[in-house]
């Protein structure tokens, strides 16, 4: 029997639930030489801010057991370049839904960026990142307080009629009030989770490995934490959730969806294996057969 891997996010049909996560898929077009981007459920474009950013000094990467720390610091060419150049270029390469990922340092910056993304025909979904640990103001601070999360969501909601997802940080003691605040302010969905702040020290040089001292931890070691967050938020909210954090195999997609995710983002796995997403997608039908799943949407939140 043909397996149905399609899912719906904010009214947009995805042929499968596998989406490369922001910051782990270049600008979006790099992999087009290696595989057909149409195979992907959707693509999240590189995190974008109002102004262009060089990002943090190097080293920006520190390896860890089960993953890595990154402190890229939102390197990006700015929202104007995203909407006028990058998104249209990726759109020319594929029909796959494109998700703009927006970061800001004030509520207004989020709003202006969302307005610009809203006006861009190449962009299908807006994901607002209130969870970046690698910038020294804004970013994650909006994601750790329900009132601040609500304020950003409200402003973003005013700015766009496209499906609006809010990407949340795991750096909180209770995700439920933050998730509910975003839902109440009109978010169409949530992405959980961003990276967990971490640090590594080079014991021979007696210095932090990262020039930024700290970075965001991601990778398979994060997976059980992400599953827990997704499950808690799914129990508290009615809007769809994109599960993100350590997803590396088709089994992880199924597990994340059983926890309550409607789709998943694949992050670090792309950095270890740039063909991770198509490999996972190809493995889904056989795994569904094994698990007696005909329609992937049937397992969303069964736990």
């Amino acid at each position, binding site marked *: 029997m043909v397996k149905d891997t399609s899912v719906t996010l904010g009214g947009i049909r995805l042929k499968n639930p596998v989406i490369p996560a922001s910051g782990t898929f270049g600008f979006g077009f790099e992999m087009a030489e290696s595989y057909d981007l149409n195979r992907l459920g959707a693509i999240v474009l590189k995190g974008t801010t109002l102004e262009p950013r060089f990002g943090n000094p190097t080293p920006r990467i520190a*390896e860890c*057991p089960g993953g890595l720390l990154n402190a890229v610091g939102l390197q990006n060419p700015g929202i104007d370049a995203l909407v006028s150049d990058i998104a249209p270029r990726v759109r020319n390469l594929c029909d796959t839904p494109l998700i703009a990922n927006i970061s800001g340092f004030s509520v207004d910056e989020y709003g202006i960026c969302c307005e610009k993304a809203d006006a861009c025909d190449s962009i299908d979904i807006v994901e607002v990142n209130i969870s970046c640990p690698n910038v020294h103001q804004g970013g994650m601070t909006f994601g750790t307080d329900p009132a601040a999360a609500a304020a950003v969501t409200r402003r973003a909601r005013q700015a766009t009629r496209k499906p609006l997802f809010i990407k949340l940080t795991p750096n909180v003691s209770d995700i439920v009030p933050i998730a509910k605040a975003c839902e109440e302010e009109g978010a169409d969905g949530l992405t959980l989770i961003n990276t967990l702040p971490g640090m590594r020290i080079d014991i021979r040089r007696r210095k932090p490995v990262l020039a930024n001292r700290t970075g965001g931890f991601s990778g398979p070691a994060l997976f059980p934490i992400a599953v827990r967050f997704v499950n808690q938020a799914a129990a508290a909210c009615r809007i769809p959730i994109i599960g993100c954090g350590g997803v590396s195999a088709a089994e992880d997609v199924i597990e994340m969806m059983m926890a309550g995710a409607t789709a998943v983002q694949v992050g670090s796995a*792309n950095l270890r294996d740039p063909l991770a997403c198509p490999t996972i997608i190809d493995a889904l039908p056989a795994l569904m057969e094994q698990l007696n799943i005909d329609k992937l949407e049937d397992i969303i939140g069964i736990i």
Partner: protein
Amino acid sequence: MEKRIYTIAANTPVAPAVYRLELTSDGVPGLRAGQFVEVAVPGKYLRRPLSVSLSEPGRLTLLYKVVGGGTAALAAMEPGAELELLTGLGNGFDIEACREKALLIGGGIGVAPLPQLCRDLRAAGKQVWAILGFNTASELILRDELEALGATVHVATMDGSAGIRGLVTDALRQVRPDFDYYYVCGPMPMMRALYPLLPEAGEFSLEERMGCGTGLCFGCTIATIDGPKRICHDGPVFKKNMLPW
């Protein structure tokens, strides 16, 4: 970029902590000089970016230095074992940019990509001079290989135990090589010291700690005249006039 399984044909030390890794895989085209590979190492999450010393169809020769747990695990691997590589990464050297006479400058393990560069330049009918810099004579590698490939090779060592005493910058001043284009690969301090001494027509192969090696993570970004660039994806080779040093 291509992902492929290679078999280890040889993995042997050639200097203290430096290994030559010979890999074979059927039906693989060669790489451009100056391109690199990312090697999956047992027990490590990220791959290790390594220089390609020589490539030909079906065969790759890598040179690497053991600097941590990942390269130590690689050094422990035996012939016959399989490794998964991402190959064809980076832009590689611009062979065409040299009209007649090329100067190659390498320092430490940074000499690794010079043999193929030398071979390809010679195949294109160019003359090749090389200046190789090391701390001490025991670290000296690739002199014989480069001479066999037709290069005129000068060596500098910090302690004077082989060739000219001092840095490659000292050797450059003493040797006064005749060239119309140059290629530099080595540690960043060496390249920055060479930068003001060299004319406009030339290029530098840069290094930085990488995450993915395929342009996806923006971990290895440097500032250039043309804005931020990813060393793994837009480089590793940059023309001198791109570098705001």
